Structure formats: C-alpha cells, structure tokens
C-alpha cells in the first residue's frame, strides 16, 4: 500500500475544563479514497477535523499530512488541505464570486478566473456568481462553502456534515458532487451521522465515539464481517420444535411456535442464498408458511449494534 496521505498517531485533545474530546486517535487515510467518519453528536468528529486543519491545538500526538509533520511544516501541508465547516459561516454581504476568489488568494494562489468559473459551474452556482451570499438558499450557501474550499485546488478535502439540514433531493445532488470530486483525484474525509450517507459514498468507514476510534474498515468488509441477513417466516401451523431436516440452518422458533427466524450470512448475499435453500427445505419437509420477510442488516444496524455493545461494555 502506498504511503497514507494523512496519518494521525496518538492524537489527543483535552479542552479546558477537562473534556477529553479525542483520546489517542490513530488513523490513516489513503490517497484518493472517500473516508466517512461516523459517530453520534459529541463523538469528536469536528475536533478531529479541527486538529488537522489548524482550528484546534492538539494536546498530544502527531499529525502527518503528505509526509510532512503538521506541527512543523504546517504551511506547506495546509496549502493542500481544504475545509468545509459544519456551520454556514461566511461573509453574508459578499458576492459568491468575490468570496470564492478571496479564498483562492488567501491560500496563496494567483488569480485564475477560469478556474473559479469551473468550480462555480461544477457546483451549479455560476448563475448566482454576482448574488450576495445572504440571498442564497441553505443548500446554495453550503455549496458556496464547498466552492471556497475548492478554490485553492486542495488534494485533501474535509467535509464536516456536508448534508446536515439539506433536504433529500439536494442531498443526492451533493453526493453526486462529492463523487465527482473523487473522480478528479481529491481525497475526501467526511463526517456524518446519516449512516445512509456513509453507506452510499464511502470506500472506508471509521466509527468514532467518546473521542476514540472504535473501528476502521472497508465499508464492504465491515458489512461482510458484521452484516447479517434475517428472515422471518410465519408458519401455516404451529410447531413444537424445529424439524430435524432444518437443523443445519440454526433456526429459532418464536411466537409460540408459529414463527421461524433465521439469522446468518455475511451481508454479501450468502444469507439470502441460505434463505432460498431454507424455503426449499421447508417445502421438502412439508412445513407450510404464509409469509416470508427477508431483511439485510444495513450499516445503520451495524452501527447501532456496535455502539450498543460499547455502551454495555462501558
């Protein structure tokens, strides 16, 4: 594997007053990936981003971006990092064009109107370029912030809750835009508490809670490892025990013998195949059933399950 674009080791942040927002976080981000940092409110997502982007002073640990130690070569590294904050914070009286051009200059780049035009067009903001930002809708303001973050052509982009407060229609559009950025070779780290978003977009998912990374894995691998298929079969007549012929499926008899429940598989189709085999075995064994409900566990189920066990352990 090539050297990570961002490497975090033992990152700790304790706020004044003793609140430990980050607790010895280790994290490697691969070049070109979309990484979703998933966690409940107050988990430390924004603090983690702040520490990399220079908004938060870490209490301990090291951050290496593009192979450079951020505490020493922060100028070089920061010039290649873009940040879209969670809050819609921007100069409301400025026009879109000027705000985005300012960002480019601030990061030390020469004027390039063609480049700014490109960015505005790609975010469907071109016809609003002369509008004051305060006159734009929430979704457009969010896109202006993205345009500002892209103005200096960053290689690593942080999106802190990019779709918070954005309606479903626009959220899909935002996902398309993020995917397009990835196509252009930008490495993207996004935080979200919409699990659906991580499931849709991310190559890898990290789950953070209480300032600690609980798990980092390929989304696919995570679903394979933790994902299950659940099949609920309502029976035509009551059974007193699971028939011998079905013993190999690991079934559970519920609802006083009127329901069979199957749990298994790996989130990658194996479970569904087993359920298909199970229905045939039911028919062969002469067990009639009136309904069949199959449900694959989503990232959300995994996430809730993981936080649940963590809570019990705590």
């Amino acid at each position, binding site marked *: 594997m090539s050297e990570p674009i961002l490497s975090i080791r033992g990152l700790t942040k304790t*706020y004044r007053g003793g609140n430990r927002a980050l607790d010895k976080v280790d994290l490697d981000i691969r070049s070109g990936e979309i990484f979703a940092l998933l966690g409940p409110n107050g988990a430390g997502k924004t603090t983690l981003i*702040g520490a990399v*982007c*220079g*908004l*938060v*002073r870490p209490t301990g640990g090291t951050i290496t971006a593009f192979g450079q130690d951020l505490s020493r070569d*922060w*100028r*070089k590294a*920061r*010039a290649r*990092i873009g*940040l879209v*904050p969670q*809050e819609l*914070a*921007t*100069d409301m*009286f400025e026009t879109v064009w*000027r705000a985005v051009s*300012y*960002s*480019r*200059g*601030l*990061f*030390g*780049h*020469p004027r390039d109107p063609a480049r700014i035009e490109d960015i505005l067009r790609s975010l469907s903001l071109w016809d609003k370029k002369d509008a004051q930002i305060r006159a734009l809708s929430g979704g457009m303001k969010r896109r202006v912030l993205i345009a*500002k973050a892209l103005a200096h052509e960053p290689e690593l982009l942080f999106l802190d809750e990019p779709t918070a407060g954005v309606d479903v229609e626009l959220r899909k559009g935002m996902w398309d835009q993020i995917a397009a950025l990835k196509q252009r070779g930008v490495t993207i780290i996004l935080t979200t508490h919409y699990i659906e978003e991580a499931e849709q977009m991310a190559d890898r998912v990290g789950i953070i809670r209480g300032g600690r990374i609980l798990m980092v894995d390929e989304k696919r691998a995570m679903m394979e490892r933790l994902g299950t298929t659940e099949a609920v079969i309502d029976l035509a007549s009551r059974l007193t025990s699971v028939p011998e012929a079905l013993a190999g499926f690991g079934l559970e008899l519920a609802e006083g013998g009127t329901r069979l429940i199957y749990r298994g598989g790996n989130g990658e189709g194996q479970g569904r195949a087993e359920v298909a085999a199970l229905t045939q075995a039911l028919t062969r064994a002469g067990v009639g059933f009136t309904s069949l409900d199959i449900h694959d566990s989503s990232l959300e189920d995994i996430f809730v399950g993981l936080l649940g066990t963590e809570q019990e352990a705590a």
Partner: protein
Amino acid sequence: MHFSLRSALAIYQREMSRAFRTAFQSILSPVLTTSLYFVVFGSVIGARMEPVGGVPYGAFIIPGLLMLTLLGETTSNASFGIYMPRFTGTIYELLSAPVGVAETLAGFVGAAATKGLILAAIILATATFFVDYEIRYPLLAVFYIMLVAASFALFGFILGIWADSFEKLGIIPVLILTPLTFLGGTFYSIRDLPTPWDAVALANPIAFLVSGLRYSFYGTSDVPIAVSLGLTIGFLAVCTITITVIFRTGWRLRE
C-alpha cells in the same frame, strides 16, 4: 521567515472592500463629526479665542481633532475586522489557511492603517474650508500619522481578539481613547494648565501623541518631539510583540 504576499494582499483587499461597502459609516460619519468640531470650535468659538503659542486657535486644534478621529476610527476598524470573523465563525478559513501572523497583520492592520490615512487626508482637506493653516514639516506629519495609524491598528487588533462581546469592543474607544484625547491637549496646551494639573496631564500617553503631531504642524509642542516619537514607536513594538505571542499561543483564536 516565510511570507506570502498573495495571502496578505487577499486579506488587505477584502478589508478595504469591506470599508468601501460601508463607506457611509467608516468614512462619512467621522468626517461629518470632525467638520462639526471645526465649525463650532474652529470658526465660531475660535474667532473669540486668543492664539495658543502664536498659533491661531482654529488652527491649533487641528492636530488634536485629527488625532481624536484617527485613534478612534483606526482602533474600531481594526478591532471589528478581526472580531466579526470570530463572532460569525468565518475565522475558520483564516485559521485553516497557510498564513501566519505576518500575513494576517499585513492584511488586517495594513487595511485599518490605510483607512486611517485616507480619513486623515479627508479631514485635513475638510479643515481648509473652515480654518487657515499650514503644515510646517509635512513629511514628518505624514510619517507621524502613519506611525500612529499603524500602532492603533495593532492595538485595535488586540482589542478585537480580546473582546468576547460587542460591549467590550466598544468600551475601550469610548471610555478610554476619547476622554484621554480630549484631556490630552486637543483643545488647549498642557503648558497652560495650572500646577499640578500640567504634570498630571503628562501621565496621559495620548498627550504625547497630540503634542507630537502638533509639533509637525506648527513647530511648537508640550513635550520634545523625540519623546513623542519614541513613545509611539515603543507602543508599536509592544503591540507587535503582544500579537506575535497571541498567535504563538493561539489565545482566543485556536481552541
């Protein structure tokens, strides 16, 4: 040391465009206020006053009035320039950018000082409508005004970082700078004060500023010009060091 001229220029231009966007408040209103002073104290009352140290009263008060506006406006301009981004959250961009204390100061303080100079020029031009005056050492006057504008832009910047409410932001110019300028010999010569008030007046640092500027205008001053210059440069140095320390520690900027 690394310095990005482009970054500094970006901040500077944005701060300047902010001023022009609010031209009425940032330029017209101080000019109007100062004009009123010139009308009342310069033309109307000044005509009945004795000359001070050989300088007609209307002309005598010009350096003090100029200083009054320069200090107040430069301080509030610079303090608002950095306080507003902190207040609205837009400061995230500055903090995440590859810019250090040098670019930040060049941008914010440079713009505030420039606005101060523009204001000073407009006030001096306005004054010619109400009183006759001549500047004896124009180069010294320009240098001194630039020095004061830069110092108080730095001071305002510190104020904007220190303040955590609009009240605190307004309190220093109104409760400290304006009274001290009034008592610092804007309308009279400190030498004319009865003992011990002449000595007490010299405890007011702004008296040295007014005196220094008046020297460059008319060649007369309450304290030697070298003392005024030294004090102003010293103040500039203290403010610069303070801001450098603020950036190094991240106080009120980075959590």
